[in-house]
């Protein structure tokens, strides 16, 4: 059964997420990571609930993962995950070759705040001729708390408490590493 779909412009969500990152990056009261994580975690849980209410329970770990890579990813990022790998011991790597939420992030411009620190720390990296790449990954991290937390929220809601981290050193591609907590 199709849920009635109400739409709005993607720009709205884009600019809103951008604003929230800039707001928390520019003030000291609450840390950026913790606050944006809390925001994303709630969104992930609620969204997972709304995406799954009319379907049978996802029992298997792999079923949940497939759901995240397909339906959930399409709902959020308008495309599927391109590649899913696992070590069969609770670690999954989701590769999105063109991650939507970072597609407008320039890889030349470091993000505000951490700009100076990253430039200095960005040492030479093997197989990486472009010095801006580690810097780009650092810059992208501020914007990745939100999607990571959304995914973590969704997985937690579907019965898989986990940690999620992201690597965006090869923009516009982005890898999400998920570690399911054994339990």
């Amino acid at each position, binding site marked *: 059964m199709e849920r009635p779909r109400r739409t709005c412009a993607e720009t709205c969500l884009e600019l809103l*997420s951008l604003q929230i990152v800039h707001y928390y990056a520019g003030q000291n009261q609450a840390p950026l990571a913790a606050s944006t994580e809390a*925001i994303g975690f709630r969104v992930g849980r609620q969204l997972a609930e709304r995406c799954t209410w009319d379907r049978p329970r996802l029992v298997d770990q792999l079923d949940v993962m497939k759901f995240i890579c397909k339906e959930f990813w399409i709902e959020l990022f308008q495309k599927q995950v391109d590649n899913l790998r696992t070590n069969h011991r609770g670690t999954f790597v989701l590769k999105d070759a063109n991650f939507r939420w970072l597609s407008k992030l320039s890889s030349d411009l470091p993000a505000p705040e951490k700009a100076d620190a990253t430039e200095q720390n960005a040492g030479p990296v093997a197989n990486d001729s472009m010095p801006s790449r580690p810097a780009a990954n650092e810059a992208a991290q501020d914007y990745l708390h939100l999607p990571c937390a959304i995914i973590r929220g969704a997985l937690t809601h579907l019965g898989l408490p986990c940690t999620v981290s992201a690597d965006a050193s090869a923009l516009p591609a982005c890898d999400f590493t998920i570690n399911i907590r054994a339990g």
Partner: protein
Amino acid sequence: METINSEIFTLMYGSIVRQLITDLEDITEVNKQLDTMGYNIGVRLIDEFLAKSRTAACTDFRDSTEKVAKVGFRMFLNTTANVTNWNPEGTECSLVLEDNPLTDFVELPEGCSKLKYCNVLCGVIRGALEMVNVQVECDFAKDTLRGDELNEIRLKLISEGTEAYPFKDDD
């Protein structure tokens, strides 16, 4: 125009408001912050509006508000507003939103009676209009979440500049 399921936007906005309340612990500050965020969004949103709406230049304030209500809200939130309650001078009016996607699934708990939940919209309108030389004050006057029968945003024109070119004719 790329569109998404508006539930995602609505949930995200709700989660942000909730986080701001937790972090700022002061509803007045939250209202202010939502307005500022809206302003920052508005000054960028206007670019997309001008690029994609294909509307002619606004002739006066009346025309501008109609564009905001009928074209802007339709484009970005997929809803429309009605412009009513003009003052005799034609400098103040109300945008009445019958259907507000931001408030889907929302109920205000006790203790949040002063929260202007949708204040971000005021900031967006103010920021966007400022970029086309129309300075307005914007306030959420009536809010269904706080028990009013409709959502009303009150707009007050401060000044309306004609296009001023920063260069002189050097003959």
